[in-house]
């Protein structure tokens, strides 16, 4: 059974009004066939069906307005009887219903997608060979045959979204495939224990698209990389002094000189020295990335995003400072281009900005390490057996122990520490 949801037709759009149901309950429907129309302001949009089957229930009537991602209808196989989804003590498993390539598949469909039979073999090859290493790894870990999945990427490739949804649905519809149970909505049997009971004092808000993507990625990362952490304390006296000295010059050149810029420069040099930290894993292969593309995590109102500075090693400190400011501003005003949030090879994040002593961040897949910067504040330190007050910072390297061992992480961080504590003003 597939849930049909109210799609999000624009970034700032939070709801939609059903204007017309093109199909009625009981009508058969093909995937991508127009199913209903919604309207928002002066736009009427025709929304295609996310799956093939029969329209089993309409939950939102013509004229009603609901939040984006709410379930508006359900599609089942012709065999499924009409018992509606069980009452509110199960979480709705909303499959993405956006009118673009992001659609869900119901793995219990019987032969309704047979028009692909002719091309099955060549498609299979493309899917297996050309889907990304990450997708193939996910498939392996979940024992999923990639050729089972309808890919929505280029030439039918299976994208990360495709396989994650396939796995989600596989969990949901499995019970209904085994024949000896009455046809019941799969979500009752297979979803995790309900997190609230009917009548409990809760407020339910469907997740935004960004929130869902973040949630998926975090689970995936925790599941994929064995995370290990090393924390170093770095004395920022020299950097603080250089920053004070050069701040005005940099501002005149149109760049805000932040600690992040210095840290990025040190990290880039360290990545050049220790290329294993700038690599990825592909099955049994280590993929050393020749480009150094640094992602800088930016906190947004309701989430986060990681814009990427491409070929960061080709920039000097001024160039880095400029790029960081520009990307952060555009991230907050939602003006990033799609290619600016892709192809990162290493990420820097700043839990210290909210006051944390240090953070233990999750790696941004398919990278193998992430640098977390704690708060930079004056603390008592020991220098030459005497107590002095200096600005210090705890920097954490979260790393994937499949590829980056403790010794590598230690060497990397020691290098970064050395660079920052003895920052050469020739680099400015």
């Amino acid at each position: 059974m597939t849930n049909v949801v109210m799609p999000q037709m624009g970034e700032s759009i939070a709801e939609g009004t059903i204007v017309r149901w093109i199909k009625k309950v009981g009508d058969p429907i093909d995937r991508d066939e127009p199913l209903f129309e919604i309207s928002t302001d002066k736009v009427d949009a025709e929304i295609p069906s996310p799956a093939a089957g029969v329209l089993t229930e309409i939950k939102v009537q013509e004229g009603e307005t609901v939040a984006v991602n709410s379930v508006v209808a359900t599609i089942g196989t012709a065999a499924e009887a009409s018992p509606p989804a069980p009452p509110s003590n199960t979480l709705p498993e909303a499959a993405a219903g956006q009118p673009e390539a992001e659609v869900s598949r119901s793995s219990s469909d019987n032969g309704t997608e047979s028009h692909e039979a002719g091309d099955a073999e060549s498609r299979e090859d493309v899917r297996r060979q050309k889907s990304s290493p990450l997708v193939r790894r996910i498939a392996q870990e979940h024992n999923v045959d990639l050729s089972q999945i309808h890919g929505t990427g280029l030439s039918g490739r299976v994208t990360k979204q495709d396989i994650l949804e396939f796995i989600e649905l596989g969990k949901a519809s499995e019970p209904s495939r085994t024949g000896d149970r009455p046809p019941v909505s799969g979500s009752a049997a297979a979803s995790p224990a309900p997190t609230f009971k009917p009548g409990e004092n809760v407020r339910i808000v469907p997740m935004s698209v960004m929130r869902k993507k973040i949630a998926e990625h975090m689970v995936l990362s925790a599941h994929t990389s064995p995370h290990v952490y090393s924390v170093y304390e770095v004395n920022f006296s020299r950097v603080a002094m250089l920053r004070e000295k050069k701040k005005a010059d940099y501002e005149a050149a149109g760049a805000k000189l932040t600690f992040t810029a210095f840290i990025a420069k040190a990290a880039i040099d360290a990545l050049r020295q220790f290329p294993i930290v700038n690599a990825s894993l592909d099955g049994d292969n280590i993929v050393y990335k020749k480009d150094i593309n640094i992602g800088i995590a930016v906190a947004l109102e309701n989430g986060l995003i990681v814009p990427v500075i491409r070929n960061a090693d080709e920039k000097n400190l001024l160039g880095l400072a400029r790029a960081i400011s520009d990307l952060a501003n555009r991230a907050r005003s939602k003006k990033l281009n799609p290619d600016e949030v892709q192809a990162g090879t290493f990420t820097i994040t700043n839990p210290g900005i909210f006051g944390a002593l240090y953070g233990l961040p999750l790696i941004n897949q398919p990278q193998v390490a992430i640098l977390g910067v704690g708060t930079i504040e004056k603390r008592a330190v020991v220098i030459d057996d005497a107590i002095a007050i200096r600005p210090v910072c705890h920097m954490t390297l979260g790393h994937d122990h499949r590829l980056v061992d403790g010794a590598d992480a230690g060497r990397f961080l020691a290098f970064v520490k050395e660079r920052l504590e003895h920052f050469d003003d020739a680099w400015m």
Partner: protein
Amino acid sequence: MARPLEVRWLGTVPYAEGVDLQKRLVEQRKADAIPDQLLLLEHPPVITLGVKTRHDRSHIVAPPATLKEQGVEVVETGRGGDVTYHGPGQLVGYPIIDLRPDRCDVHRYVRDLEEMLIRAVSRFGVTAARMPGLTGVWVGNEKLAAIGVRIARWITSHGFALNVTTNLDHFDFIVPCGIVDKGITSLGHLTKFPVTVEGVVPPVTDAFAEVFDRIPLHSAASPPIESHQ
């Protein structure tokens, strides 16, 4: 990389024919058999009803007999929005474009159409603007251009209507877009020199290409029209 945009000036086309043409072109665009299109045309007098008015025609004020007498058709459409009027002297534009990959936002599309029209009329010395909450292009309290769009799989159809030398009395037959307390105007009313629908085509085409980052190509059937400047 700017994408090609086929610009077609079709002259006067009955409304229903325009709708059929759009449907065919949308299918062809979906199949990627044709590039993005910008259809520019005029309609004989017609009142069109958007999806909002499917069950409520109270925004047509004139009785059917009057409409018939004046030769004004009434047609239900699949575009968004309320009721509007099209007629001679009004430039109607139907962009049939693919909003993927980076423009898949219906609010943005509507704002971009407004921006395009604002830029186009500025060439005539007219300063038009948006009115928050009221889609369309306004000069003071009067509406200069209306917008009503349909989207299927991120391919657009229907579009905009810019009053150039429209008979504004015909708007008395309706409550335009369901907005009771604002008036209607046209370019002809606002400029100091004579304007024609055809004369507005080049600035509209240029502004559209600019805002949507497309390269205009004129199809062989309709040679480019000399700019009136």
